């Protein structure tokens, strides 16, 4: 299933945050949305999944979702958004409960999702007992359990420390090799975008516009190889040049807004 964002603009009151953003995500593709803080990345993700009503423009889906899919557009949240009063298995089961699946099918799906992200031994744990990385794994398992057509990931690694982020990134890469999931991946981290994405969409500072779309010419599986290092380094350099100006201007803008 393809996700098409068409001419989306949005503002909060008099403050415009998105201005005519169009992009498409093809089935099996990971598109990273890169931009400085406050450029409307998260708002765009909210609009893409139907959680925020756009001021203008629309979002459409093309094609059918897989038969097992219960929730085509599924989020992974920066703050994990786990229910603290449910254990790991209960959190993962939440999105299944209103679908009238049999108990056996529900248990099978939960077991499968937990196994895919390596959580099977933690199914009875409370969220408060888990580290940040494990909590986000629960968030990912909860997203996988509905067999989503498109994953909408809102800075899923930003709340984690550097080592945990690296481990989770490896898990995401392994997951993509297994399942070829489709994702719109919001981040402000260039390295994450270059590890995972097929294309990187750079947004300008507020109001966010598509500044540039950069295709990463190395297959996801080969990005760790020494042969790819030079290409990726050059790309990193180019993207950083783009992002740096925007980030610097955005930073000043916020400082000015704070002073006013």
């Amino acid at each position: 299933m393809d996700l098409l964002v068409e001419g989306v603009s949005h503002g909060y009151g008099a403050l415009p945050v998105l201005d005519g953003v169009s992009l498409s995500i093809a089935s099996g593709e990971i598109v990273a949305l890169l931009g400085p803080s406050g450029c409307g990345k998260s708002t765009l993700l909210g609009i893409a999944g139907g959680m925020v009503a756009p001021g203008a423009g629309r979002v459409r889906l093309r094609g059918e979702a897989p038969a097992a899919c219960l929730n085509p557009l599924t989020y992974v949240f920066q703050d994990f958004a786990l229910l603290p009063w449910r254990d790991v298995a209960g959190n993962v089961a939440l999105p299944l409960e209103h679908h009238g699946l049999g108990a056996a099918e529900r248990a099978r799906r939960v077991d499968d999702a937990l196994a895919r992200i390596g959580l099977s031994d933690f199914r009875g744990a409370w969220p408060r007992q888990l580290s940040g990385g494990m909590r986000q794994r629960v968030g990912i398992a909860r997203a996988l359990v509905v067999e989503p057509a498109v994953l909408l990931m809102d800075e899923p690694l930003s709340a984690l420390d550097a080592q945990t982020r690296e481990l989770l990134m490896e898990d995401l890469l392994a997951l993509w090799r297994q399942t070829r999931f489709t994702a719109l991946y919001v981040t402000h981290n260039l390295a994450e975008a270059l590890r995972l994405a097929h294309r990187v969409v750079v947004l300008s500072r507020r109001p966010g516009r598509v500044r540039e779309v950069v295709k990463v010419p190395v297959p996801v599986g080969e990005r760790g190889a020494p042969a790819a290092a030079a290409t990726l380094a050059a790309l990193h350099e180019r993207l950083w040049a783009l992002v740096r100006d925007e980030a610097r201007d955005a930073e000043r803008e916020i400082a000015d807004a704070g002073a006013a």
Partner: protein
Amino acid sequence: MPEPRDVAFRGGGFAPTRRRLAAPVAFAVLLLAWEGAGRAGWISPIFLPRPGAVLEALADLARSGALAAHLGASLSRIAGGWAIGTAAGFAAGLAIGLASLARSVGVPLVSALFPIPKIALLPLMILWFGIGEASKLATIALGVFFPTAIAVHAAVDGVPRNLVRMAQSFGVPARDILLKVVLPGAWPAILAGFRITASIALILVVSAEMIGAQQGIGQFVLQAGNLMIPEDLLAGILVLSLLGLAIGALIGAAERRTTRWR
């Protein structure tokens, strides 16, 4: 080169800990001193009877069946009034917490009526419902209603919106969001509200019984005072404090059972 000096310790303190035996020993000393002073004749038994005499009075009350009758009357008033007030306050608080219209109307209304000392409404309740049980139940229910509505409203407001949005993003129906996200999230704060409303119910039942009742701990305490039987008076107060402790322990047990995830 000068001789190195030790770095002096300057932290510590400001971190009191609990000594396990201190409290029971202090209680025992206090009670023994009181009992001793009474026996020695230093304190007049009319002014303050000995703890032993109070316990004897309590035992007599238990044997005669008067204790059970008074306690039963008070407990049924507390239970009935608290249940009515909690049910209504729960519904109102939930509506205020979830619906814009209920919030716009309910918040000013509750804020305006909350500060009225509810015992002052007992005469009005007697006018409406008569001198019997109904006016007492209504007074307790009113006293419980407002704090419950405020506690439930605040508790619902305190449920993180991102959890509600998360559930919506998975297509969870509104009724399920209420049952699986809003109510469990609000529950600890609602239980904390129950502690307050239970003590309000206890205060109101005693006050209402002192104003007009045939039976009940409040009536018993007032009558013991009028008849100058301080042993009975203190026995009644002892029963009331035990009742308050028991209700608190009950709510504490409910808290531990239902909020193990915290």
